[in-house]
């Protein structure tokens, strides 16, 4: 049994199945829903299989078609990739379940192929180990995501998607330019090779500038976050969820990988800059979220703030690498679950009430208790209150910041949590008013409510899984040698 599992090339399956599935859905729209559900579920199983493989054999390598680097394409998965794949599979499955109830036929036929395409691209991205492959997957994911964002065809959606697309293309091209420079300098696109060869030189610095800017733009770090709120807020709920939870994380993942392997060791003050931008993002995003009167925009701005947290790890990683990165990864994982749950819950409210004006949400929130619970639990994680994944991440981050005496960051971390509490409760407070007015409502299928709730539960559950998760992430030492914890 064990040997069978370890022999199947799970990594390839993770890419191929959704890719083929996407095409199949495009060709046979009638089975799109079923196929999508099945394939995302198989995706979950495949990740489990891959996890088994990695845990028993160590880091996963697969040379596609038998051609290895430098000519062929190499699949590579260590603990970090595995976790990203796992969270993608989980959130993806949740989104699929949700979408099966959400979309009407007309949109459904367009949604499934695109969604499976995004999923394939995401999986491929997390399994890639060369910077050009990363570019391709990033681009495929980005284009499919733009198409998804424009799905409803409304004015807001179209203009949001347009902005998103332009930002995306700009980021990709910039990234590609950086890739070109790196290849020119070191003659390889394989990350492992590059890591060995890379040296500080004008070419490298230029590459860092181009790649960094491109990825920061795609990750929507302040001040390059301008495209995110309109795009995320105007997309259909499952799309918003997947954009906020997964797509944004993909570019962050690339940045993290490249930083760890290639750019980080070079030194310089880039990490400080990232830290400062992250800090401003936390404050700015949270304050903007507090100011919003529309629920989806609030949640979207919350994403801006939460991305800022991820970047706070950069300056801290100088002297406490593993801990800081652990914190960032944990925050990314829990944010993926929580934000997906939040957007899905928002979608439920929007569907039930027909609007997302926060001030008038009371009658909606009260009649969807499961959705309200999902929103609340996700909110707990976003606020970083225990017990939740967000809390663990914040705890680790605070610990590192305090150990290094980075008082500015400490204040930012704490303040960000307080502001998050502010905007989360701005919504939750609506659950307890005396809403007497009845209104026209559209029923919300149970699958939609439960999908949101279970994802939110996942974010909470992550608060109790720190030990296994952190030991998983250590497989293959993506963050370098493990230091002794203080």
């Amino acid at each position, binding site marked *: 049994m064990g040997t069978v599992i370890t022999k199947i090339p799970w990594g390839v399956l993770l890419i191929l199945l959704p890719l083929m599935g996407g095409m199949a859905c495009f060709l046979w729209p009638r089975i799109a829903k079923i196929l999508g559900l099945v394939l995302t579920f198989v995706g979950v199983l495949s990740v489990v299989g891959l996890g088994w493989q990695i845990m028993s054999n160590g880091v996963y390598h697969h040379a596609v078609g038998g051609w290895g680097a*430098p*000519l062929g394409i190499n699949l590579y998965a260590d603990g970090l990739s595995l976790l990203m794949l796992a969270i993608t599979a989980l959130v993806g499955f949740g989104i699929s379940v949700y979408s099966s109830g959400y979309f009407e036929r007309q949109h459904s036929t367009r949604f499934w192929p695109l969604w499976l395409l995004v999923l394939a691209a995401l999986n491929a991205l997390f399994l890639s180990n060369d910077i*050009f492959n990363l570019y*391709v997957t990033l*681009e*495929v994911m980005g*284009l499919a995501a*733009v*198409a998804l964002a*424009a799905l409803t*065809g*409304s*004015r807001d959606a*179209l*203009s949001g*998607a*347009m*902005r998103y*697309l*332009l930002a995306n*293309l*700009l980021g*990709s*091209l910039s990234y*590609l*330019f950086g*890739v*070109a*420079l790196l*290849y*020119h300098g070191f*003659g390889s*696109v394989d990350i492992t090779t590059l890591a060995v060869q890379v040296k500080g030189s004008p070419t490298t610095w230029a590459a860092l500038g181009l790649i960094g800017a491109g990825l920061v733009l795609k990750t929507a770090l302040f001040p390059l976050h301008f495209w995110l*709120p*309109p795009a995320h*807020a105007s997309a259909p709920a499952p799309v918003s969820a997947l954009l906020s939870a997964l797509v944004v994380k993909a570019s962050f993942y690339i940045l993290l990988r490249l930083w760890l392997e290639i750019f980080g060791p070079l030194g310089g003050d880039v990490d400080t800059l990232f830290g400062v931008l992250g800090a401003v993002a936390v404050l700015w995003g949270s304050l903007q979220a507090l100011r919003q009167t*529309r629920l989806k*925009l609030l949640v979207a701005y919350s994403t801006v703030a939460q991305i800022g947290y991820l970047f706070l790890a950069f300056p801290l990683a100088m002297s406490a690498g593993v801990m800081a990165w652990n914190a960032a990864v944990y925050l990314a994982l829990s944010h993926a679950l929580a934000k997906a749950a939040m957007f899905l819950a928002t979608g439920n409210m929007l569907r039930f009430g027909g609007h997302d004006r926060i001030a008038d949400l009371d009658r909606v929130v009260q009649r969807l208790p499961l959705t309200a619970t999902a929103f609340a639990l996700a909110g707990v994680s976003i606020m970083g209150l225990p017990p939740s994944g967000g809390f663990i991440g914040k705890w680790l981050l605070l610990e590192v910041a305090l150990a290094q005496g980075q008082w500015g960051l400490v204040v930012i971390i704490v303040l960000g949590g307080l502001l998050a509490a502010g905007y989360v409760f701005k919504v939750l407070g609506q659950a307890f008013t005396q809403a007497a007015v009845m209104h026209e409502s559209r029923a919300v299928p149970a699958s939609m409510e439960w999908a949101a709730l279970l994802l939110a539960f996942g974010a909470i559950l992550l608060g109790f899984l720190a030990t296994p998760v952190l030991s998983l992430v250590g497989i293959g030492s993506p963050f370098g040698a493990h230091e002794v914890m203080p």
Partner: protein
Amino acid sequence: MSTVFLYALVGVVLFSLGLYALIVHAHLLRKILAINVMGSGVFLVLVALAKRTGEDTPDPVPHAMVITGIVVAVSATALALTLMLKLTAETGNAELPEDSRE
């Protein structure tokens, strides 16, 4: 100044021009074109840098990259144009509306 370097320099100039155009022009078609110009710049750089080994036969890998890149650029342009048309049909204006909600 070698030919290769000249090519590369032109590529960089194209990229910068495209970037400039992307920023200053409001019309979406111009923006899309700007993106394409930028892409061409990058491809040019890639092609030029393929001769980095100094041998007669250039490195094939950048070429493969450029081909991939062109495919991506084509599909991206197609998507962008579709979006633009839809947006124009919806708003009657081929420019991005000022976002009233921000």
